[in-house]
């Protein structure tokens, strides 16, 4: 059995990456942030809405020290996901606010623009 073949770019779903920041009383880890955001999205949009929004909280992009991370969603549902993220009031046991820093088309651009990270292309 071979692996799943990559779908050509024209047939792929269009997506956006939302860079967010978690403001909280105490330190929170990725799992509780992911749970809180998912809970809020399912509560606000319902299971069907969440499926259409195609949300994905990216684990590798979460920086636990600065409490910033990236979430992927469909390009048509950015506003819905944003409203759902605003309704988060608790992450784990701590009171929290999830604040959207900005929206971008690629992870790389999101990191460069909103997290202030630099790669070699930034110096060209």
């Amino acid at each position, binding site marked *: 059995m071979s692996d799943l073949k990559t779908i050509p770019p024209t047939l792929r779903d269009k997506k956006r990456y939302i860079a967010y920041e978690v403001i909280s009383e105490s330190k929170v880890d990725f799992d509780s942030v992911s749970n809180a955001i998912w809970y809020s999205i399912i*509560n606000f949009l319902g299971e069907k809405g969440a499926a259409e929004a195609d949300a994905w909280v990216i684990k590798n992009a979460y920086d636990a020290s600065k409490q910033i991370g990236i979430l992927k969603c469909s390009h048509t549902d950015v506003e819905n996901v*944003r409203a759902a993220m*605003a309704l988060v009031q608790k992450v784990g046991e701590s009171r929290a*606010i999830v*604040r959207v820093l900005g929206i971008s088309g690629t992870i790389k651009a999101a990191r460069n623009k909103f997290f202030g990270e630099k790669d070699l292309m930034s110096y060209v």
Partner: protein
Amino acid sequence: MKFYDLDLQSKLSDGESTVAELIESAERFGFSGIVICDKPENLRQLKEMIEIAKPKIEVYAGVKIEAKDANEMRNVVNRVREDATIVIVSGGNYEINRAACENPKVDILAHPEKGRIEGGLDDVCINMAAKNNVAIEVNFRELLYTYRRNRAYNLTHIAKNIELCKELGASMVICSGAKGKWDMRDPRELIAMGNVLGMELDKAFAAASTVPQLIIERNKAKLEGRMVTEGVEVVG
């Protein structure tokens, strides 16, 4: 773009955060100005606390009126109008909603749908509100602390009010209605909520920026004595 949040409550009334904490949060979220609205009897104390905090952004003192009936509301509005920059009437009761819409001294009618089985506003109210420059508020806190069925009801009612206001030309403002710094949200998130509830994006932006700015400037002109009457202003 300048963003404003007109409906915040501090520890002086039902809130849990101090004035300084609210101002700090607002600065962090990038608001250009906020209005802290506490009970009428605490207005002087609130003004002193704002002066002590030395804010970098514009901070004004307002009043949020929770009256039992329309008569009491009218009396309190007449009493505080000369001192408060913003007068908000806390809605919910149809009698009070209607009286607030009919009163040109009121700036904002907050959560007209609170505790009701419908939106709390009919076309008569909204026509009067448009005529008297009373803005109808979309209260974010009403959605933040309700769950499941109640939140669904609130979403329906607020969406209905937005539709009516759009149709009949009344102005709308989006406010967080925060009672503490953990209820405050980034202005863009409030706008997203307005957009999801049926406002067009430009209208939602206006509801958090230009409409509140206009209300504040109009009231400042009145309080400083520059505006003689509606439409007549001392310029030179």
